[in-house]
């Protein structure tokens, strides 16, 4: 019998609770115990833990959020690194530390592993851009939310003969924009990895409208370069009027096309709510695999999906440079532009 500690760090992501449930139930099958560490790294530094039995994870599968809470604290930034977490690990006889988090959190876990902790990573991001795994849980849910929004906004765009820019998450990589744009039949998709020519996008919209389709949906990843020569207006209190690159693009597209252009920023709606069936299954399998890796003493690893199999890979692979949309996928999306 061994003791597994588990924590969730960083942003909220649909499926976090499903991972915790998968881990807890499988660990008990393996005759291991699980301690939940509250509020991310902060709880590990301050010793806030609670026993997770199977009862504690009943009914949490469909719930968004995380029953363990999360924080943006980091032991190497807000503490003395490994020293600041070693006390909690030792006092609770934690043999394996399962860390559920994004690439930043996984890098912290890797460093703790090098400094002496027995870590196992579970990659978490709705952006799907962590290296070493084909998919991350939460991504499918976010894509479904954006696709639903595109479907709904299409009727509004058509009713008013408008261009609607749908701004989605993706600061450096455009996975959500590409998948949801493809799924929603968007007329153009702008992502950070692929430079765009605003004149070309406008020409494509103009051509489409000339041929009788008087509306267009353009999906914009939040991290694309803003168009040149844009000044943000200030309001009476001196705050910038509306952030978001789509708000900067809209007047430019309106001017170049002559069509009314409106903006919808999906923002936090993309990571809230209940996980999709795909994400529940993926998250549960990742959680169970993490329990198995702990039982086998395979530390310094990360659970991942590779070619539809759930496997353990070196944690360092998940900490490599984040992964962009591949050319094949984006070229398929591009075939449907206009």
């Amino acid at each position, binding site marked *: 019998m061994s003791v597994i500690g588990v924590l969730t760090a960083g*942003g*909220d992501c*649909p499926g976090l609770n499903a991972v915790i449930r998968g881990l807890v139930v499988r660990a008990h099958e393996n005759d291991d115990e699980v301690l939940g560490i509250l509020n991310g790294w902060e709880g590990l530094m301050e010793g806030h833990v609670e026993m997770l039995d199977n009862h504690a994870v009943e009914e949490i599968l469909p*719930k*968004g*959020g*995380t029953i363990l*809470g*999360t924080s943006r604290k980091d032991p190497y930034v807000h503490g003395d690194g490994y020293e600041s977490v070693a006390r909690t690990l030792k006092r609770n006889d934690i043999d394996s530390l399962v860390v559920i988090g994004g690439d930043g959190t996984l890098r912290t876990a890797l460093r703790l592993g090098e400094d002496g902790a027995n870590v196992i990573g579970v990659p978490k991001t709705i952006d799907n851009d962590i290296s070493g795994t084909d998919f991350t849980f939460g991504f499918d849910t976010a894509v479904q*939310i954006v696709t*639903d*929004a595109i*479907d*709904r*906004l*299409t*009727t*509004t765009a*058509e*009713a*008013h*003969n408008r261009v*609607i820019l749908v701004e989605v998450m993706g600061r450096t990589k455009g996975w959500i924009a590409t998948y949801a744009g493809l799924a929603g039949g968007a007329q153009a998709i702008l992502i950070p990895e692929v430079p765009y020519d605003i004149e070309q996008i406008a020409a494509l919209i103009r051509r489409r409208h000339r041929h009788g389709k*008087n509306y267009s949906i353009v999906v914009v990843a939040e991290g694309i370069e803003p168009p040149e020569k844009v000044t943000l*207006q200030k*309001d*009476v*209190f001196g*705050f*910038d*009027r*509306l*952030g978001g690159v789509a708000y900067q693009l809209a007047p430019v597209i309106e001017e170049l096309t002559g069509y009314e252009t*409106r903006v*919808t*920023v999906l*923002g*936090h*709606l993309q*990571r*809230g*709510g*209940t996980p999709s069936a795909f994400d529940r299954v993926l998250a549960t399998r990742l959680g169970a695999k993490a329990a198995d890796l702990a039982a086998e003493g395979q530390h310094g690893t990360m659970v991942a999906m590779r070619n539809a199999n759930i496997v353990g890979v070196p944690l360092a692979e998940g900490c490599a440079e984040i992964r962009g949309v591949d050319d094949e996928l984006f070229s398929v999306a591009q075939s449907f532009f206009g």
Partner: protein
Amino acid sequence: MRIGILTGGGDVPGLNAAIKAVVNRAAEHGHEVIGLRRGWAGLLYVNPDDPASLEEFSQPMDPNWVRTIDRSGGTVLHSSRTHPGKVKASDVPDFLTPPDGAQEPYDFTPHAIDVLEAYGIDVLIPIGGDDTLSYGLRLHQEGVPVIAIPKTMDNDVHGTDYCIGFSTAVTRGVEFIGNLRTSTGSHERIAVVELFGRYSGETSLITAYLAGVDRAVISEVPVDINRLADYLTADRAANPSQYAMVTVSEGAVVEGGEMLLSGEADAYGHRKLGGVGEQVGSMLKEVTGIHIINQTIGYLMRSGSPDSLDLMVANNYAVMATDLAVEGQSGRMVALKGGTYTNVPISMIGEGVKRVDVGEMYDPETYRPNIRHVGGKPMFLY
């Protein structure tokens, strides 16, 4: 008899269901329906002497053509905010010249009536909010038979308790707020949710009431940020999950500020709104030091398929309007009064404004919905 139908102003879920029901009901009576495309714009931009333009702005409809349209939101006839009685010089089509000595904006109502005659329309059914229907009233006064159907996601047309689209808009608001709770709670933040609602705060107030949101800022009551910040800080501390939520109408103002408008005014004198949620969020962050989740629901509120209630009202309004049209009535608006389907003079839309009764439904001190009395109120409380 030939019935003309058009949709004006912002789209709402349920418009297509209403169009379908008008076509089917008319067909039962043996009458035909022609759709006028892009709201009142058709009546301005059609040249009655040019068959191509007559075709461009019209859509003949029969039960087969409308069979599937009720399954989606938006409007198959498209919409506009054109007002043929108030036309800017830059919007006047080439084939028209303003009347001698007339001042901008120009009144092209005589031309609009010519267009209706060219289409052979005997009675017109406009579906719209108070702006769109106000021009319906004008045409009625000019002798054109008109039966109006009220729609708006704000539910603010005077003379009826209910307008098509309101229920779905509130349903969407409640649903999205529910989805934002997990993120807001996981990060222990304050969520500021901006909702559509120009001069009236119904959508913010009713959505907050139904979604159990901590505080609601409405267009009618300027908000004191320091007071709101104190309340939200206390709400957050009292919540076991350590978060708080507030809804904000897009037309709301911060005390000492003004309505956030952008762009040029349209033909009805309205400019685009938006940005107050971000503003309130930035100010709350500054005062409280607590991280904010800013979310604008915006166009998503009126997008997508209608809910059952909007399907119900859209179908019944359409049936009632068609029957009135066939009976040869004019100048009526179909309505709900005291829970009962009825019709009222269309002139009622101009005789008052429909707003949240702040004293009855809202506490301006605590920024909370406060429904003092329910008995005797219409289903949606106003």
